């Protein structure tokens, strides 16, 4: 991935040491790139949350001019698989409401930063080159623009273990594509490929496999001459389709309750999925 980067991309050192991702700063276009290489499983584990929070703080506080923020992943065919199922299943078995609640709150804060442009008018882009599932898809949807590789799968599989995506899924999909699309995705658990999302209004731009970085820059370059107007449009979007933290927090508390009320068979499935993810990661 580094090879594809422009020569004036440097490590975004303000974020300090990160283990689950690498952040870059591209000075010519004023972009901060957050490229995830999450392990052992490409999910939102607590370590990744730590790193993302560190980068976000740095973006918020940095003296560097930043017009754009792009998140992506260097894990092949994978943007993010979402919530940490291992953490979930353990917390549910041990009835640790506080653990689940705290985890969910951190995720909500991340979404709010992305949606709010870090309080400094930064335009955020998700560069989805592989699967974005559950919380991974929710995170991608929280960016102002979602650019997706044509073969990328995006969806909410939580229903398969009798849960629901409680960190912004309904709010973001509902506002962008309407109630029917939101419920179709949440209720079915299906993960269609990107052209479908482009069709319904969830993905803003599609690109061919391997062209992600180029597509992101092209997208940004075409925005540059009209940045002033685009920023105003985004502010208007917030005014017309506002997503308030309270709404997200309320839904998340419901999510915690729902999680704690899943049945044993559902927890077992969650655990099996973790094993499967581990196996895949090892392969």
């Amino acid at each position, binding site marked *: 991935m580094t090879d594809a980067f*422009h020569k004036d991309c440097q490590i975004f050192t303000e974020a300090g040491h990160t283990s689950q991702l690498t952040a870059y700063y591209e000075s010519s276009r004023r972009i901060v790139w957050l490229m995830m290489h999450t392990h052992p499983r490409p999910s939102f584990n607590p370590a990744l949350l730590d790193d993302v929070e560190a980068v976000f703080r740095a973006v918020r506080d940095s003296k560097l001019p930043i017009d754009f923020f792009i998140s992506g992943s260097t894990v092949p065919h994978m943007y993010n698989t979402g919530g940490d199922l291992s953490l979930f299943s353990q917390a549910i078995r041990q009835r640790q409401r506080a653990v689940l609640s705290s985890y969910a709150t951190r995720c909500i804060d991340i979404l709010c930063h992305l949606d709010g442009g870090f309080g400094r008018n930064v335009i955020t882009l998700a560069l989805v080159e592989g699967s974005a599932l559950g919380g991974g898809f929710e995170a991608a949807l929280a960016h102002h623009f979602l650019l997706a590789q044509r073969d990328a799968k995006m969806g909410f599989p939580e229903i398969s273990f009798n849960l629901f995506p409680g960190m912004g899924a309904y709010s973001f999909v509902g506002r962008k594509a309407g109630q029917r699309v939101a419920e179709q995705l949440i209720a079915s658990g299906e993960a269609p490929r990107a052209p479908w999302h482009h069709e319904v209004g969830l993905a803003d731009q599609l690109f*061919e496999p391997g*062209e992600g*970085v*180029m*597509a992101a*820059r*092209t*997208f*940004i*370059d*075409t*925005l*540059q*001459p009209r940045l002033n107007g685009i920023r105003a449009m985004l502010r208007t979007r917030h005014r017309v389709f506002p997503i308030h933290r309270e709404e997200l927090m309320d839904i998340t508390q419901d999510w915690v309750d729902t999680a704690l009320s899943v049945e044993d068979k559902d927890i077992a499935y969650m655990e099996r999925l973790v094993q499967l993810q581990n196996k895949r990661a090892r392969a």
Partner: protein
Amino acid sequence: MIDLTPSSWLTQRFGTDSPRWRLPPDSNALYLSDADDRMIVAIALSNAQAEDVRKLEGSTATVAIETQLEGIPLGLILIGRRTDHDEWRGVATWCNDTAAVRREMERGLNFSEQVISEVSSLIVIVDDQGNIKRFNRECERLSGKTEAEVMGKNALELFFSAEESEKIRANLTTFFRSMHSWETERHILTKDGPRLIWWRNRLVRNATVDQWFLVCSGTDITEQRRAQARLEEQASTDSTTGLPNRHAIQSIINLAVATRPVKPFDLLFLDLDNFKNINDHYGHAIGDLLIARVGQALREQIGPGDVLARFGGDEFLLLLYDATPEKTASVCRQIRTLMETPFTLQHIQVYSGCSIGVASFPADGESLSELVRNADTAMYAAKAANKGGVMHFSREMNNHLQESMWLDGGLRQALQEGQFSLHYQPQVCLRSRRATSVEALIRWQSSERGMVPPLSFIRYAEDSGLIKPIGRWVIREAMAQARRWSSLPQPLRISVNLSARQLGDPELLSDFMAAMQQHGFKRSPLDIELTESCIASDEGRTIEIMSALRALGVNIHLDDFGTGYSSLSQLTRLPLQVIKMDQSFIRAIPADARSMALLRSMVAVAQQLDFQIVAEGVETDSQLDFISEIGVDLAQGYHFARPMPADQLEQWLQQHGKP
């Protein structure tokens, strides 16, 4: 807005329907902008479209793309190319659907691009920093680098030495400021080493990007220069000696006389004394070898600042800078010493002295031609005075030269126009007191100068070789006279003088015989007078010729005996019949007793050896008495008669026929 055509839309956006375009390397956003880059629009190209644009490498070419802007379908033709390593730029123009128009346009552009690529000149286009913008095929061939490799890189760093590139950088700045075109020769570094290129440089404005570029078109003149240098070297070097040749030394002298302030120098003209003989005798190979060895030996004698050149034949020129009379004298001494020692050429030992003439600049001439001519004149004077000698030029020598030139023309004219005549001086037998023979003496009645005395022209005739035709004329004329006199009651023998040069003439015998035949003589009525010097030069050959003449009935006289070094005993080896005592012995009579004693004993010995003896220059009675007394056979001199024309002699004979 809906009704806008692409052209009017472009004009509305950019103030022109040909906006500029730019494509960055790391994004497919095509920027369109107005001339001042104030109005910018970015269009996302598809990958395929962007790839097509990126195929525009060094050459300006076109790509047609279909896109849309703000909902308006737009067919654009992008004309341009990669401007440096990181960017593609050019001018966009809209196209309607007329594919033919587009094709025409592409074809035209492609054609001119192809011309630049394929033209046999080197074409490089650089910006004001020397960064390469174009690099045609010929450049690729010569440099071994491809256009793609060098595009955007700095030409000065790639192709020039640090030193040259520094100079060029300064020039570039100046020329971009002054906007002049210029031509220059520069060495560039290539895969095959440095090459010399003749560059014609011209500043050209590219309206597409509103920038001035330097268009350099070059020709590789390395080989041409090498050939020139070889030719110049060949043209200025003498192949036999490796010394500068005539052409080169002339240039050097021209330079030396043009130097200001005037710097005196001496020009030495060296001429080998014996070269012609060596060449004739041993052949040209040995002759050339001698020239080479002499050249080499001379070179070792001269100082590092001085110049030695072969002027031609056996002539060398030596240019001595900062000459003083002492320095020149010392160099001449060295050369003479050197030339006194023999050269061994392929086991043959050869002596070749040389004569040297010196002319000083500026005293003896201020131009090349004057200096060389005067040094040459001085050399001739040196040779004439004493072979192996040195003479410094003086104005009088020029008079001598002018005299020689007059003589040369005059003698030739005399031969053609019959200005020569023979006078005859009788030789009287002292016993019978009757004239039995005459000496024929040449007279020249010049149309310009009247009677020219033999002393003034014989020497030149000898030196110039004109003596041969003159001698032939003398023989034929004397032969004719002998025929006329053959009816006299007492036929006279006529003696003619032969010089060494005539004696060496291989045609002498045949000419002599032809003259005899022409006048019907079976035995020669002519006798020959030779001097000692004739005999000294090549005795064997001389004897051969003397014997052949003898066989024709010729009596051989030895003229001026007593002045040379031959002894009487030496003379016995020669087929001589008559010895003529030199006039100096006769003049000594009666005052110089020693000379008289010498004459007496010489005559006695000669009588013993059976030579006839003639006394020349007899003018007085006492002289006649003495020579009669000591037994001289014949006498010649004013006492009897001056030399006179044939008709006068006939009268004289009638009067003095009897004692």
